[in-house]
Structures are given as structure tokens and as C-alpha cells.
């Protein structure tokens, strides 16, 4: 057994012993049943927090785009990022946090909301995407308008229909809060709250959200039984018909394409960023990881189910000048193939990621 193994073993043992000791204390002390659940939650929280947050590249994955060497992940920096992610103070009226539209159970997408739903009950124009594996994403947003992970939070914070706040004012609000003063000092080694520290801490939180634990991943790492026969058929179809854009292992090639949703698209998509005609109605190819957890689908959230999505590619691709040539005429898929494809897409859910308590709201 390696030294690391021994240390880990001892840690687990200590954790177990503490859990037992604390449970005994709780049971002996109050006897109240309600508090047992509460104490158990707090214990789980404590034990989970010992798993230090870190950033690791899964085996066989490419080099990430975001370089953590300029923003080393620390326990305190990560904890601060986590606090900020769940803090509605980042919005103008204290109503809306990042987590309002990025829910962990939905792989940090906005479950059941076609477009993001922000402050004062306003709707945005695009579907809030899941958040995971962002360190590999060269640009963010459906149109790739944000080029760097660190500055990404500035967009929803200042968008009038999302959080409608200015970063300047957020920094002022946090600077007036003694607990934040303490958290920032702990995260960066000296007192001071500014936008750079805020953004770097948030990046430590969202940038370390790595999702590579689906059954599909276990299958590709040499566990043939991780996928059923139907799912394996679906994977073969996926590789033949879908993976030219949804490239493995991240299940996106990070390009921008028009997938034929409309003959006369209303949202100009990437053209708003590049001002190039050829980018009209092109949107970022999203990763399909956790896709079964992130309905609805497409940049405008028009489809509620994976079946509808697959049917779109097979039956309803609309021609338009910027339609991706690979989709012209649609993708030929019979009923059995569609079912296999959907079965495969459902194997892409990473249950461990969506239940990782380090990414849930902290109890304070």
C-alpha cells in the first residue's frame, strides 16, 4: 500500500469514527429525531469537504483551454467561489443567484425552462446550458461571445433580464460584508475584495466541475457491461452519424453550426459576435454529456425530450443558407435506430457529478 493509500485509509477511518462519535453525541444529547437528519447532513457536509477540490484531467482527454496555473485551486478559494455561485446578492434585488438558473440536479442547466428566467420574472432569449467541463471550452455562451472562463460571470451579472447588477456594485456589497472580507482574505492570502478575486474564485468553483463519470465513460474505459446491448448499438450509431460534431470524448467539437431548426431563423446566433453573414443562426455545438438531465433542448429550449431532438435531426431539418452541410436532407434513422440513440444518450448522465456535495450549496 502506498503512503497515499495509507493516508486515505486513515482519513476514512477517522471520518467514520467521527461520524459515529457525533451521532452518539447527538442521540444522547437531544434525543430529538428531527435533529438527527440535520446532524447527519452536517456530518456528510463535513466529511465531503475533506475531499479537497482540485482540477484533474480525465485519462485520454485533451489539454484544457483554461490554465489553472494562473489561478491555483485552493480549499478557501473554491469555498468562496461556491458561496458566490449560490449567493443572490450578485443580483440587483437579491433575488437571483447563479444557481437560480444553473441547478445541480440538472447538471447545472435550468430544468424545465426553455430560456433563462431572471430577475423580476423576466425571460432571456436563450436556454441556460449545463455547466461542466468548462475548462475545455474555448468560448462560452451559445454564440461564443465570451472568450475566457474567468470573465464569463460578468455577462449574466450585468444582463438586465438575468441579474441586472454591475460588478462594481457587487464588489461594493461584498466589501461591506465582514464574512466575505474573511473569506476573500482566506482565499487570496491578504485582505481585499475586487472583481479579479471574485472572478478567480468563481472560476475555481465552476472550472473544477469535471463530469467524466457516466456509464459511457466506464464503457470507454474498458467495462463492456457498463452499457446495454441497445445502448452499445446507439453508441455505434452515434459515432457514425453524430460524432462529427459531438466529438468524443467531450462530445462536442466546440464549433458553431446551424442545425436546421428554422427555415427563417430569428436569432442571428454567432453572427452577432462576428458580423459574418456565414455565421447567421449558427450556435455552439453543445456537449451531450448529461444530456438526459438538461431538458429542454436547443438554444431556445424548443424541445422537451430527447426523442423530439432525434426526430428533428431525422425528419424536420430546415434548409437555409447557413445550414450545416452534413445535415442537409436530415439524418436517416429508422424507429429502432432512434430508440437506440436515445437509449445511448441516456447513458451519458453522470450521477456522481450531479450528487457531488462539494458543488451543492454549502450549509453555513
Amino acid at each position, binding site marked *: 500500500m502506498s503512503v497515499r493509500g495509507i493516508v486515505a485509509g486513515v482519513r476514512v477511518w477517522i471520518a467514520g469514527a467521527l461520524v459515529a462519535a457525533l451521532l452518539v453525541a447527538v442521540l444522547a444529547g437531544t434525543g430529538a429525531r428531527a435533529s438527527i437528519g440535520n446532524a447527519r447532513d452536517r456530518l456528510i457536509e463535513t466529511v465531503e469537504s475533506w475531499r479537497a477540490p482540485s482540477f484533474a484531467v480525465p485519462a485520454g482527454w485533451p489539454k484544457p483551454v483554461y490554465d489553472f496555473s*494562473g489561478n491555483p485551486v485552493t480549499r478557501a478559494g473554491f469555498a468562496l467561489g461556491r458561496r458566490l455561485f449560490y449567493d443572490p446578492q450578485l443580483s440587483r434585488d437579491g433575488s437571483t443567484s447563479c444557481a437560480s438558473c444553473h441547478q445541480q440536479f440538472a447538471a447545472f442547466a435550468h430544468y424545465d425552462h426553455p430560456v433563462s428566467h431572471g430577475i423580476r420574472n423576466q425571460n432571456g432569449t436563450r436556454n441556460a446550458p449545463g455547466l461542466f467541463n468548462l475548462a475545455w471550452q474555448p468560448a462560452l455562451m451559445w454564440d461564443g*461571445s465570451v472568450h*475566457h472562463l474567468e470573465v464569463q460571470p*460578468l455577462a449574466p451579472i450585468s444582463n438586465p433580464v438575468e441579474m441586472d447588477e454591475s460588478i462594481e456594485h457587487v464588489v461594493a456589497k461584498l466589501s461591506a460584508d465582514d464574512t466575505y472580507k474573511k473569506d476573500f482574505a482566506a482565499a487570496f492570502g491578504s485582505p481585499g475584495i475586487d*472583481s479579479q478575486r471574485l*472572478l478567480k474564485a468563481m472560476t475555481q468553483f465552476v472550472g473544477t466541475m469535471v463530469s467524466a463519470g457516466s456509464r459511457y465513460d466506464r464503457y470507454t474505459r474498458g467495462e463492456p457491461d457498463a452499457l446495454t446491448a441497445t445502448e452499445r448499438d446507439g453508441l455505434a450509431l452515434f459515432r457514425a452519424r453524430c460524432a462529427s460534431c459531438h466529438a468524443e470524448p467531450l462530445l462536442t467539437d466546440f464549433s458553431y453550426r446551424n442545425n436546421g431548426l428554422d427555415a427563417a431563423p430569428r436569432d442571428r446566433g454567432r453572427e452577432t*459576435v462576428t458580423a459574418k453573414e456565414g455565421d447567421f443562426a449558427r450556435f455552439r455545438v453543445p456537449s451531450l454529456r448529461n444530456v438526459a438531465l438538461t431538458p429542454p433542448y436547443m438554444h431556445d429550449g424548443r424541445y422537451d425530450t430527447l426523442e423530439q431532438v432525434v426526430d428533428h435531426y431525422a425528419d424536420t431539418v430546415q434548409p437555409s443558407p447557413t445550414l450545416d452541410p452534413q445535415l442537409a436532407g436530415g439524418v436517416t434513422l429508422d424507429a429502432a435506430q432512434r430508440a437506440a440513440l436515445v437509449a445511448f444518450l441516456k447513458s451519458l448522465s453522470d450521477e456522481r457529478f450531479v450528487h457531488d456535495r462539494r458543488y451543492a450549496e454549502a450549509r453555513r
Partner: protein
Amino acid sequence: MHALSFPVRLAAAGSLAMAAVLLAGCGGGGSAPAAPAPVLELDQVWAGKPFALNEAVTTPAGEEFTATRLRYYLSGFRLRRADGTWFEPKTDAQSSEGYVLVDAAEPASAKFALPAAPVGEYSGLEFRVGVDDPRNNAGAQTGALDPAKGMFWTWTTGYIHFKLEGRSPASPEPEQRVTLHVGGDGLSRTVYLLFATKPLKVAEGLQPTIHVVVDVASFFGGEVPLKLADTHTVMDGPHAVPLADRYVGLFRVDHLHHEPAAARP
């Protein structure tokens, strides 16, 4: 980078005296510079008269315009030596040093020290209006580059290099608003100003100041004057190219000034 390039330049110059000057200026890194850093003083004018926010003027296209905000970044300062080589200060990717945000609402922002330069004579100054592409894409920054300064686009990544806002009866926008924001990759512009009449001297005990006139009217002028009736709202990179090409003409050297430096502690 400089450690490598300087010997090459020295060989070309073939001057030992020059070498001593250069090494004194560049060597050590941590040591205090031998001479006071040149100061750049910007005199913002409108066609020869002092430029002021909230005062109506007439543009070269004959339109009335009242500026309410004028802010721009200057960066990438380097000085040209008499022999044609450049003194280029070291930059630190982690620091916003060398990036200056000039704000017409804050007169103090129009006068600032340039990076300390080695003792010698210089024939010109080059700088960038705006923020360079690498820094534009480098993530969260501090100081002059703090996004809280209001010069960073949030709906798309990138610094606003140059921001001119105001009102004009020519604008069809609500409240006659004029919003000219030039920003994003590829839209900073480099300006070279030649010290035509005499060189800039950097020496111990001497405080050199470069007085530069920034004629805001020239932004609206040129061969094809800017018409606010047509161009009143520009807030994205691709449509700002014609505007970016205008701000280069804003700057001209008025005069250089050398005076005894205050005794340094």
C-alpha cells in the same frame, strides 16, 4: 527577451558607451531607475479650444454634439532612440501596469508617468489606443483593467478601447443619444508620435514631459467627416472598424518640456 535582443542591437550600434547606458537602464530589474520617468500630459481640446463634457459643439459634418463621456485606454508605451532602436519596458501579464485609462471626467487621468526609461535621448513615442488582443483575452484583470471600471463588455468578451457618449439632435435614438464604443480584438490602434523639433532627454535630475494634444474634433473630421445621423450607435467590434481608424488621428505632440527634477529622497 530583452536580455537576448540587447546584445544584438548593441553589436549593430557598435558603441560601448551605448552599452553602458543600456545596461544601466535595463540591468538589475529591481534597482531604482537612474532618471525620472518621462511624464505624458494630454491636453484634450475641440478644434483648438479646451474640450469639456456637457458643452455643445459643432462637428466637422455640421452637426451639434454634446459629449457626456469620453474614456479611452492607452497602453504599450515604447520610446524610440535616436539610433532607431526601441526602449520597450518589460510587461507583466499579471499586472495592469502600463495600461492607462484616460477619462475626460477626471482631469488627473490625463497626466501620468510613462514607464521609467534608461538615460538617453529619444526621438519618438509609440503607444496603443486600447488594449492589446492577448490581454483582451487573458481573463480577470485588476487596476486600470478592472472590469468594474465600466470599460469591459459583458455581453461579449473584450475591453472597450474607446468610449464616446453624448447627445446630438442628429441622432434618431431616444433622448438623442450618441453611443460610440470601440472595443474587442483587432480594434486597438497604434499611434507613433515623432518628436520633430528636439529629442526627449532622460537624465538624472531632469524631469521630461511630453505634451500631447488630443483633438476630439479630429475624431469627427478627416476626409469623410463622421455623420452622427448615420453613425450614432456603435457597440460591437465588427461595426467599429471605421471608428477605430479615426482615433489614431486624435493625437499630436504639442511640445516637450524639460525641467529640473525635484530632489528625490
